[in-house]
């Protein structure tokens, strides 16, 4: 079944919003753009899954998580613990949409 990536992006942004609670308003613009960019890259990776080796695929997925977390901790308003929680919520959304995603679950 084809993945509706627009819905995945919207769900991922909603999950981040919920995880950030009251802190969302201060960072919403930047975080939304970053999540959209990362979901777009996840989409690209899935589209090119056949040509990417398993090792590179796993590495790219882990890099995705790492990049989102470091972007989030770049905001003064977001603590390390909150950033980890946001990443975990966003990853859950992606895993729900694409259960076969390797690397992200690790």
């Amino acid at each position, binding site marked *: 079944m084809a993945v509706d990536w627009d819905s995945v992006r919207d769900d991922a942004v909603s999950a981040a919003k919920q995880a950030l609670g009251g802190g969302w308003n201060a960072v919403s613009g*930047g975080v939304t*753009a*970053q999540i959209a*960019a*990362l979901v*777009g*890259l996840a989409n*690209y*990776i899935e589209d*090119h899954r056949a*040509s*990417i*080796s398993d*090792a*590179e695929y796993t*590495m*790219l997925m882990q*890099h*995705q998580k*790492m*990049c*989102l*977390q*470091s*972007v989030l*901790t*770049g905001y003064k308003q977001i603590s390390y613990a909150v950033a980890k929680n946001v990443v975990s919520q966003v990853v859950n959304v992606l895993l729900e949409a694409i259960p076969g995603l390797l690397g992200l679950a690790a």
Partner: protein
Amino acid sequence: MRPMSTKWLWVLCGCMAVSACQAILYDAQADQQITSLGQEVNQQLLTWEFDEARQPGSAAYDPKYYAKVESDLTMLQMRINAGSGSNEAVLPDVFSTMQKLLDDEQAAHSSQSRKVDGAFFHVERGLWNTQLATLTSYELALKQSGQAQSASGADARAKGGQESSKTK
């Protein structure tokens, strides 16, 4: 050598206190270094992506590129941390993430046993840009706060000028 007089010690302490309280200033050179690093990474990863699309296996490993990016990244981090006027590192996770991206890309690219696909370079470029965007936002925020401060300073000076002309 003559001992420093108490008066000069107080002046020195005053200067140190003022400099310690200074706001972090926008650094045009750091901003330029971010732009240069972004151009360097985008240009090379895009070239390798296109090379792979044209002819698989043609994105030749270039250790000079990885050495140059590592060096530029180190210089940029030093510059931004030095400009912060604090012992606390600025955006440490962003810098360590970029270092990890570079190390992993180099390991994958230099490995003889693995083929690196053009899509790999495409995604890595996108990931680099998320980190570079964070650094750019940091410098732009400093620039904007500096402009706001000078504008409010100019307002205050203008107001002061009006007040003094009224009293004349």
